[in-house]
Structure formats: structure tokens, C-alpha cells
């Protein structure tokens, strides 16, 4: 199954390998600003792909995935603050693992009831979940959401922080892409796609829909949490407002939609374009970048409803049709 999937997608794998090779060497010749843009791109692409495992493959659009960014970040932060291990790197690794685990556990608990909702109801319920988490983090003193948490500094003295976290992001995003690819070519992936296309028929064909949806949800939530934890460390200091951000939740959807929903390359392309636009092109603007971002969103949905990938396919098809 995996072997077959690798064979079928070999050119994509080659492209991804080349891409990561380029990414690994990039800090050598990029300016620190470009490295930070790279960080943000990797973070965004990772989030888009993690969201895709549930939203793109299974068709369950979550509007509240920032719940896991916040949950992971605050669990990791609280742990690292109270239980420092010998070395800062060990502490960070342990905190990251624990935070990701917390996301896995919480998502597994809420998965069954919440995945019984479909369509817009699931989307709204997830929005509600993220708001509950955010409100509790901010208003229960023990969680320190208001006063904020200083994440312990794990950057080796010999390295610039942006370069260090760039590489951590490369690793986290590579893991996310790898998991997503594995899901896509496995039985799980086909099952999820059949759920997206027609859940009742999928069940009729023997797809264990409940179990598969839960798997997709837990994988998606855990990877989102992992990326969120890395992000929190990169910031160094987090409050509720830095990690529970509704715009994170919505941006994941924007990346996927912009690139092409249901594909892995889609969110990667989508986030590359959005990060470039919002940080590089619109970065210097004082007061209209929000207007332009909104206008872009509208334009994307209207002009490229199937995303860049769909657009490219259409062009290819038209080209092929013209040639025949």
C-alpha cells in the first residue's frame, strides 16, 4: 500500500525532497528577516496540512483548530516552567512531547461526540471548543493566560534564535507532511476521502467511518498542537492572545482553499502565497492591510474556487485538450 503510494507519487516525493534540501541550506544565504518569513511559512504550511488531514481529506471543516495551538502551547509552557529538566533542550523536548500528547488526549476525548455533527454544525462546534479553551485559559488564574508564560530559552548559544527555530519548524513541518502523505496513500486516506464524498455510502462499503474520523481528528489535532508548541517557543513569551487566535483557525482554511482543498501541496502553496503577500508585500502598510487581506479572500473564493491546484489542472486539461 505504502510502496504503491510512493511509486504513484514518486515525482511529488522527489519534489518534496528537493524542496526540503533547499530549505535546509537556505539560512546560509538568507537574511534573518527572510529566515523569519521562512519560519512563518513553514508554520503556516504545517498548519494548513495538519488541518487538511481532517478538513481536506475527510471533509470535516474545523473552524476552531487554534484550540490545539493554544492547548499545546500552554501545557508545554506550564510543564517547562514548573518541571525544568537538566538541560534547556531536554526541557523543551519533554514539554513539546507532553503538550502534543495533551492535544492527542483531549482531541481523542472530544472526537466521538463532536464528530457526530456534520457540515456547518461541526465547524461551529469546533469554534465553540476553541473559545471555551481560550476563555478558561484567560480567566482561570492557574493557567496564566492573562499574565503570560515565559517559555524557557532552549536556543544553543552558538545559534541565532531565528535559525534554530527555523530548523525546528523544518522538522515539525516535515513530520506533518510525512504523516499527511502516509495517511493519503494508506487505507485510512482512501477511507477518509470516501467519508468526505459520501459518508453513508462509505459506511455501506464497510469503511469504519467512526474510527477513521477519530483517527484523522486526533492526528490533525496533535500535529497542530506540535506546530503551536514550536511557535510558542519561537515567540518566547505567550499570552492567551498570542496562541488562541481565531485568525489562525481561519487562515488554515484559507491556505487550503487557496492552494486546493483536499491536496497536500495545496496548503503549502497557499501558505507560501499568503505569507509572502501579508508579510513581505503588505508588511510596510500602516492601516489598510486588513482591508486588502479581506479583499484577497473574497477574490480567491470567487476567482479560484478550486484553488491554485484546481486552476493549474484546468490549464493543463485545456492545454491537453487543445493539443489532441
Amino acid at each position, binding site marked *: 500500500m505504502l510502496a504503491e503510494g510512493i511509486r504513484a507519487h514518486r515525482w511529488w516525493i522527489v519534489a518534496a525532497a528537493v524542496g526540503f534540501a533547499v530549505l535546509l541550506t537556505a539560512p546560509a544565504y538568507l537574511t534573518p528577516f527572510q529566515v523569519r518569513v521562512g519560519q512563518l511559512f513553514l508554520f503556516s504550511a504545517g498548519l494548513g496540512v495538519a488541518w487538511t488531514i481532517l478538513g481536506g481529506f475527510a471533509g470535516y471543516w474545523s473552524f476552531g483548530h487554534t484550540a490545539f495551538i493554544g492547548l499545546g502551547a500552554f501545557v508545554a509552557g506550564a510543564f517547562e516552567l514548573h518541571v525544568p529538566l537538566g538541560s534547556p533542550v531536554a526541557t523543551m523536548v519533554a514539554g513539546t512531547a507532553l503538550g502534543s500528547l495533551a492535544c492527542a488526549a483531549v482531541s481523542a476525548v472530544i472526537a466521538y*461526540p463532536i464528530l457526530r455533527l456534520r457540515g456547518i*454544525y461541526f465547524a*461551529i*462546534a469546533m469554534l*465553540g471548543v476553541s473559545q*471555551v479553551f481560550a476563555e478558561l485559559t484567560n480567566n482561570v488564574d492557574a493557567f496564566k493566560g492573562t499574565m503570560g508564560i515565559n517559555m524557557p530559552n532552549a536556543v544553543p548559544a552558538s545559534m541565532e534564535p531565528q535559525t534554530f527555530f527555523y530548523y525546528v519548524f523544518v522538522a515539525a513541518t516535515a513530520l506533518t507532511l510525512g504523516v499527511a502523505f502516509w495517511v493519503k496513500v494508506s487505507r485510512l486516506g482512501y477511507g477518509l476521502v470516501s467519508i468526505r464524498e459520501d459518508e453513508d455510502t462509505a459506511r455501506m462499503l464497510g469503511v469504519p467511518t467512526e474510527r477513521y474520523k477519530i483517527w484523522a481528528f486526533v492526528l490533525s489535532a496533535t500535529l497542530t498542537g506540535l506546530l503551536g508548541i514550536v511557535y510558542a517557543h519561537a515567540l518566547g513569551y505567550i499570552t492567551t492572545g498570542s496562541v488562541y487566535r481565531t485568525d489562525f483557525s481561519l487562515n488554515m482554511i484559507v491556505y487550503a482553499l487557496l492552494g486546493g482543498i483536499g491536496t497536500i501541496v495545496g496548503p503549502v502553496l497557499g501558505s507560501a502565497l499568503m505569507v509572502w503577500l501579508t508579510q513581505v508585500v503588505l508588511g510596510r502598510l500602516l*492601516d489598510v492591510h*486588513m482591508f486588502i487581506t479581506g479583499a484577497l*479572500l473574497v477574490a480567491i473564493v*470567487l476567482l479560484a474556487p478550486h484553488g491554485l491546484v484546481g486552476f493549474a489542472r484546468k490549464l493543463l486539461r485545456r492545454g491537453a485538450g487543445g493539443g489532441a
Partner: protein
Amino acid sequence: MSLILQTILDGLVLGGLYSLAAVGFSLIFGVMNVVNLTHGVIVLIGAYLAYAFWHGLGVDPLLAIPLVMAALFAFGYVYQRGLIQLAVDRSSLLASMLVTFGVALMLRNVLVLVFSPDFKSVTPSYAFTVFFLGPVTIDLVRLSALGASLVLLCVLAGVLRWTAVGRVIRATAQQDLAARLCGVDVRHVYGITFGVSAAFAGASGAIIGIVVPFSPPDEALWTINAFVVVTLGGVGSPSGALLGGLLLGLISTLTSQLIGPQFPNAMMFLILVVMLLLRPSGLLGNAFSGSR
């Protein structure tokens, strides 16, 4: 005892506002299954228009309501026909939600540019009059806000029930295909529904403006409140919005009184999630075409 009584009264008064602010959202959701994330901004535009009338021309905000409603009806109709329908046709219902989000960002930015990011406040002459009903106190502004909200909700219910337009809207909500087969211009109906929704959102904004100070970032709050009201009360009907709004108001003040003043929002969202899981079609159970 009088504290509880006061809390309940405060909750009901607040709930009246929530109801009116949510009814338009509910209508659009019920009739065309579109989740309108622009709703909160439209509420705020209503508040800003009332502010402009009051500040510029000295028109009482409550008297300005018809003007605000007319302006926003036109806006809503054009918005639906020009943009939302396009998005639904070309993409999907879920994607249309992103369009409404994009427009919300744009409008919020426009509000900041036109009215500055500062908060605004409308204080008519009766703003600080207080009544005492036995042990409880209530102020005239909130009372008139509640009254205006109830009147407007009744008007909307009457329009939906007894007028030709209302009947067509309800018919379309239940079966748009059938309505289409009966020769109804469904797009026109959608446009009108959106217009009506925006008009009532604007009216609620005008009323909210005299009760609380407001600034552009508040839009998210009013959108989210509408979400919760609709989930509590059920979709598409003024009575559902009224029930949901009153409940939300009560939950809000009671949580604040009994659990802690910092928790009403957390409780509100918790109830949103739990309600969705237990009764996705709301307490009244008046499900609509999209509930699955």
C-alpha cells in the same frame, strides 16, 4: 433574594438585546444556510449610523431606526445578489462563509478609517433615568431597548407570518426547489431575506449604541453572540431568536453572579458546544433544511 431577582431581570433585559441582534443571522442561516460572519459588522454599522444621525443631526437613535433599517436593507440586498450568491454558485456554502469573513475584515477596516478606532457612545436625554420596582432597579435606556427589541421582533414575526413576502421567504426556507418550481424567483427572495436580516441587525445596532459604548473590534463579539443565540433557540424564527437571546442573557448574568464574573463567556461557549451535541436544532427543535 432581591439579588437573584435583580440578576434575572438584568439577564432578561440583556437577552432582549441579544435576541434582536441575532434574529437576522438566524433568518439567513435558516433560509439559505449561509453563515454570515459579516453580521456583527452590520450590527455595528447600524450603531455607527445611529451615532451619525444623533451626533450630526440630533435625531434620537430610536427614531433613527427606520432610516438605519432602510439603508441597511438596501445594503443587504445588494450584498447578497452581488457577492454571496456568486460565492455560493461558484464554490460552496462553507466557502461562502470565508467570503463573509473577508468582507467583515474589509468593513471593519473601513469603520476604523471613517470613524477612527476610538469607542463611540450615544447618550440621549433619557440615558440616565432610573426606576425602582420594589427591591430592584432598572434604567429607562435598557427598558426602552428591551421594548424596542420586542416590538421589532414582533414586527418581523408578523411580516413573516402574514405578508406575501414573508410567506415566500418561509416557503423558500423549507424547500427552495419546490419554491423554484412554483415560479418563485428564489434569488430575489434570498436578496430580500438578506436585506431584512441586515435591516434588523442595523436596528439592533442602533439600540445597542444607546446601551453600551462600541468600537470597530466589537463586531466579532456580536457575530459570536448571534451564533450562540441561534444554537440555543433554533434557526430561522423570531421566536427561536427570542428564546435563545433571553436564555443567553440569563446564562450570562447568572453565571456572573453565581460562578464568577469572569466566566460568562466561557459558560456561553460551553453551552454552545453542549447544545450542538445534544440538540443541534435548538431547544424548540424547529429544524430546517440543512440540519443533518
